[in-house]
């Protein structure tokens, strides 16, 4: 097997996926314990996100993610402690200081902007950032993500169309996990692959096995290079599966069978990554154990840190609404 990236990079990718999974699992527990109000999960999406993250220049390129992108955010330098602050609505959460819902990321230091709760808004933001990059003559790229459900929105077409018309340096990722909350793909679109929608807009659309982090990386690398070199945008569909319910507010037993979930669990992206790295001789059972232990400690530390962090003071509700930070009644 020819490795596309150095061993230590591959290990780092595996570690980030593992950490994301364990943090995510803990978030569900915290929700069940009544310690947080909301969580929306990345479980099953880790490989697609890590493959995308490592295809861009992290911290240099722009990222307009969606709420399922915990792994991507960790790869961009968002820390487990910060994630816990956000989940718990604590002061010091860099996304918003307890003002925005969890998982609606924004992180200026990593060029990450947030999105609205109505989905696909980040698609047009990404087109605008691409426009700004082009106006300035920079060689940056914008990575933006949506679930396949968001591709039903008019705005998704609007944003992708703009980028295609002006050959903007944007990569539009669709994480296709088959469900828009409870509505299956066949009820959402008549095409077999969400990426096929790119055909009508005049840009390349590529579908890839989103459970395989290296396959995603390869496809993404090409798309990012094309964007950076003036070749224009690409739609990349990563076929994944959401192993958990949509969010902490729904029960997926009402809309899909346990057999289906179990079937996809056999293609768990973490499992596939582990097998690949073990076969390549990069990962051993012992090393996995060590990483698991480290992940456990990291999660414990983050939870402790979050729980002991102060809440925002009540008067912080009043700002920052405007640039001058005025307190309008």
């Amino acid at each position, binding site marked *: 097997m020819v490795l596309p990236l150095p061993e230590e990079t591959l290990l780092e990718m595996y570690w980030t996926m593992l950490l994301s999974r364990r943090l995510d699992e803990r978030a569900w527990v915290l929700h069940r314990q009544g310690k947080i109000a909301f969580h929306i999960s990345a479980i099953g999406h880790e490989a697609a996100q890590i493959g995308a993250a490592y295809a861009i220049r992290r911290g240099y390129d722009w990222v307009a993610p969606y709420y399922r992108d915990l792994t991507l955010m960790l790869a961009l330098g968002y820390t487990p402690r910060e994630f816990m602050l956000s989940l718990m609505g604590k002061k010091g959460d*860099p996304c918003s200081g307890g003002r*925005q819902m969890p998982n609606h990321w*924004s992180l200026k230091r990593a060029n990450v*902007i*947030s999105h*609205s709760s109505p989905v696909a*808004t980040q698609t047009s933001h990404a087109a605008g950032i691409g426009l*700004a990059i082009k106006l300035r003559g920079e060689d940056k790229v914008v990575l933006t993500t949506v679930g396949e459900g968001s591709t039903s929105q*008019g705005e998704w077409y609007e944003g992708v169309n*703009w980028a295609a018309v002006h050959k903007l340096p944007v990569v539009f990722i669709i994480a296709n996990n088959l469900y828009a909350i409870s509505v299956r793909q066949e009820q959402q679109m008549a095409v077999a692959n969400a990426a096929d929608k790119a055909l009508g807009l005049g840009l390349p659309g590529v579908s890839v096995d989103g459970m395989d982090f290296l396959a995603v990386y390869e496809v993404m690398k090409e798309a990012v290079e094309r964007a950076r070199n003036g070749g224009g945008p690409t739609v990349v569909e990563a076929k994944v599966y959401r192993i958990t319910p949509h969010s902490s507010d729904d029960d997926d037993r009402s809309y899909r069978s346990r057999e289906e979930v179990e079937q996809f669990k056999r293609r768990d992206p973490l499992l596939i990554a582990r097998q690949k790295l073990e076969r390549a001789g990069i990962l051993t059972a012992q090393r996995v154990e060590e990483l698991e232990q480290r992940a456990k400690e990291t999660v414990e530390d983050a939870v402790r840190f979050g729980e002991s962090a102060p809440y925002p003071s009540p008067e912080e509700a009043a700002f920052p609404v405007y640039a001058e930070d005025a307190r309008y009644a």
Partner: protein
Amino acid sequence: MARITYREAISKALWEEMERDPSVFILGEEVGVWGGTYAVTRGFYDHFGPKRVLDTPIAEATIVGAAIGAALTGLRPVAELMTINFAFAAMDHIVNQAAKLRYMFGGQFTLPLVIRTVSGGGRQLAATHSQTPDVVFAHFPGLKVVAPGTPEDAKGLLKAAIRSNDPILFIEHATLYPVRGEVPDEEYLIPIGKSKVQRPGRDVTIVTYSKMLELSMKAAEQLAEEGIEVEIVDLRSLRPLDIEPVIQSFKKTNRAVIVEEGWRSYGVGAEVAARLYEEAFDYVDAPIRRIAQKETPLPYNRTLEQMALPQVEEIVRAVKEVL
């Protein structure tokens, strides 16, 4: 001082700011080659080029959405929405995004965004092309809503808006574009969020803005012939609402008529009257009156349209009633 039109004033403001600051650019439907539906950006495309005067697809949501994206990177987009009626197609971006990003991102990003748009009836463009829903947008904290009524204010306020680090909805009035007024020759800015006494008087306070300033001035002239001197306070921005000059005027006249082009229910009049009752109750000598659009969608037929829109005579009558 030169006498120029409202259109020329806005155009000059844009031109000067684009010359001054290369991070300012324009995007919208028909703004480039054609020079804008209301001809505000005529000549811009040839001078500044297609990169800085961008003709967009008919996609209002993405005009605003893309402008937000560009503004987040530090550029200063001026997005044009052909009319405020089309802003409803971009509502999510205006309301859920622009108004809230600073707050929801905990102040990490600034959003130096201006959305220019056109409000108002009077041109027989009917119900979905003639609305004056300015207050809808003024409802949302995080946005600033500016609506000038004179060429001088239009120029100074637009230049200030482009230099501001907040998202601003800049509402021009469809029938004010050909109206002329004195505009200083030298460069000037008008701070956003300051009401202005446009006509001093002692008997009744008229509170208004945008096109209705013109009608109120006409009413004031008629009333002056009968010895009634009204004071006209122009709000100029609906958010922030600078109520202090209104209160000062009211404490002098003890009577107020509020004139707006939009519908009365939940409107500017409701807000201003409530503020006067709250903050100057002891000075009230007569019920505060509101003049506004009839509560129907705006009709196409000229007579019907004029019946629905506020008229000078109504203002005159209301002033006499509160005296």
